[in-house]
């Protein structure tokens, strides 16, 4: 039951939150838009439809899609293994999953260079098969996957742990196989957490700068993501264009949030209100 905010403390807290949101979110968003449209709609359109921008957008989407898919699969598998089984190295796995959060993205990028670069220890294998990882698209994908690694697992593990596996045991006892159990029993329970983590993953992947910058090589039209492209435009004094491209990222963020709300609504509706 929520009480009305009629105490001084409540008002102060609410006021502080609103102020924070205004300054940190609303104002920058408004600024991006106003700067982007500074020179009018045609300039804006030109900046967005520029071929380098489109290629950067394509690369960003690719890396994001890969990160989401791979991390969803791995995150689910890891969460399942960690909460349902005992095995040697379980603690280690849980710690490893958290590493991307603890490590600076730039360091992560450097590690990839050290591993897959020309002087890296994997170089002989890579040159033998003529595979390019860093300074090419795969490197960017790997960097993005690494950065968003923990999101899915971390969201799903607590949900699985909190619930216990009685229902799954009951189903197994009646002869249900792994996929049936996962599909009918586990998945409906975690789908909200999964969706939320996918949202986080997408948002983070799209905005990643540090790690990608290190492994990118900044080859225009080839290894620049949208954030990197924004930096390039800014460095070329093309401020309006930079903000125009930045507005693309901002628009993507808004779309993601709206999509999340829609699906959340539909999940509630479908369940008849019994999400948990």
């Amino acid at each position, binding site marked *: 039951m929520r009480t009305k905010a009629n105490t001084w403390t409540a008002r102060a807290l609410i006021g502080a939150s609103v102020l924070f949101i205004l300054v940190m979110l609303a104002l920058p968003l408004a600024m991006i838009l106003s700067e982007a449209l500074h020179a009018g709609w045609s300039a804006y359109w030109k900046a967005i439809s520029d071929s380098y921008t489109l290629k950067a957008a394509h690369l960003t989407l690719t890396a994001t899609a890969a990160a989401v898919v791979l991390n969803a699969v791995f995150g689910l598998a890891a969460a399942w293994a960690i909460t349902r089984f005992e095995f040697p190295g379980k603690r280690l796995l849980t710690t490893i999953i958290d590493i991307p959060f603890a490590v600076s993205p730039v360091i992560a990028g450097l590690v990839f260079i050290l591993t897959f670069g020309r002087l890296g220890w994997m170089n002989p294998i890579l040159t033998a098969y003529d595979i390019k990882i860093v300074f090419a698209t795969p490197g960017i994908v790997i960097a993005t996957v690494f950065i968003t690694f923990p999101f899915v697992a971390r969201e799903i593990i607590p949900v699985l742990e909190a619930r216990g596996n*009685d*229902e799954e045991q*009951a*189903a197994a*006892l*009646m002869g249900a196989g792994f996929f*049936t159990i996962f599909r*009918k029993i586990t998945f*409906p329970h975690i789908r909200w957490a999964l969706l939320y983590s996918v949202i986080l993953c997408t948002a983070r992947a799209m905005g990643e700068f540090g790690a990608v910058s290190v492994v990118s090589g900044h080859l225009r039209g080839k290894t620049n993501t949208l954030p990197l492209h924004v930096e390039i435009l800014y460095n070329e004094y093309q401020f309006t264009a930079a903000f125009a491209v930045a507005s693309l990222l901002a628009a993507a963020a808004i779309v993601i949030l709206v999509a999340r709300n829609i699906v959340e609504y539909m999940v509630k509706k479908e*369940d008849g209100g019994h999400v948990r």
Partner: protein
Amino acid sequence: MYVELRGINKHFGAYQASRDVSFGIEEGNLAALLGPSGSGKTTILRMIAGLESPDSGDIFIDGARVNDLPSSKRGIGFVFQNYALFRYMTVFDNIGFGLSVQKTPRAELAARVEELLRLIGMEGMERRYPAQLSGGQKQRVAFARALAPNPRLLLLDEPFAAIDAKVRQGLRSWLRGMISRLGLTSIFVTHDQAEAIEVADEIIVTNAGRVEQKGRPVELYKSPATPFVARFVGDSAPIGDIGRLKGFDGADADVSGVVSGAIRPEFIKIFAPGESVQCESAVEAAVVESVIFRGDALEVSLILKDTRLSARYPLEKETIAAGQKIRALVYCLYAFEGGRTRLLHNACLGRQHDAYSYSI
């Protein structure tokens, strides 16, 4: 024996959950695994179900050894303690789950689910979700779900633990009636001895991983094989040295050394001052500690020779109050010697009397 366990041992880490457990249950019987928390009863149930594997020993169902058979192939219906209903499925889908896993054709599945819904008295509720059901309804759905695939053995893990006291009574009778009707061999686990006594055809009492006694409820009550069973099944008050009581002290009592025992409330009769008593020589003086109204009689807690005992006193007689001095006669008691229990009668009454022929 339809279900048989031979020499089962199980430990979890350093903790021994089952020690040399052996018993058999006849077909069509409703057996209760009764014991305090941690006595190993749930472990036994889960091993029969196949949810745990014994370290050693064999489990037989209908003559076949099932140790190596996975749970789903043992023909078992299991009702979990917290029902474990599939919360994202309707009642219909829950009940029909086992059949859908077996790829039963839809029409047949629907018919069976309807049949079970009628059986549990929940027709019309098939579209509901578990969150919309009361505790008792959930229990019945869990029951129906376990029954749907026509199991040959029904296992229930503390099925009434999560239910309100009032509802529990009705549900117990209902379950008892259902199972009898279906003639399904069933085993349920409980720590509530009153429940076990009321519902089961036979009871297996567990304690610290061992089976203490197996028998019909009346047998366990009247002839407890071990001190634990005597104390656990039915009410009783412990006594440290039975030789201190008149009628149990002499050579007639056939007891050597200090022997402890237990006295059920019905073994004691309380006499108001002035009332005439058979066997005056064995009457003891006692003080009433407290009196509690139990609906159909008074439960009297009295101190007799520094021992607290519990007895019943009829309502029709004049009431007695706390602090009152009364006289009590202990007709018989259980004596615990060398891990066995003997029912001893007060020497002054002679041995031929059956303890239970004394009315209150």
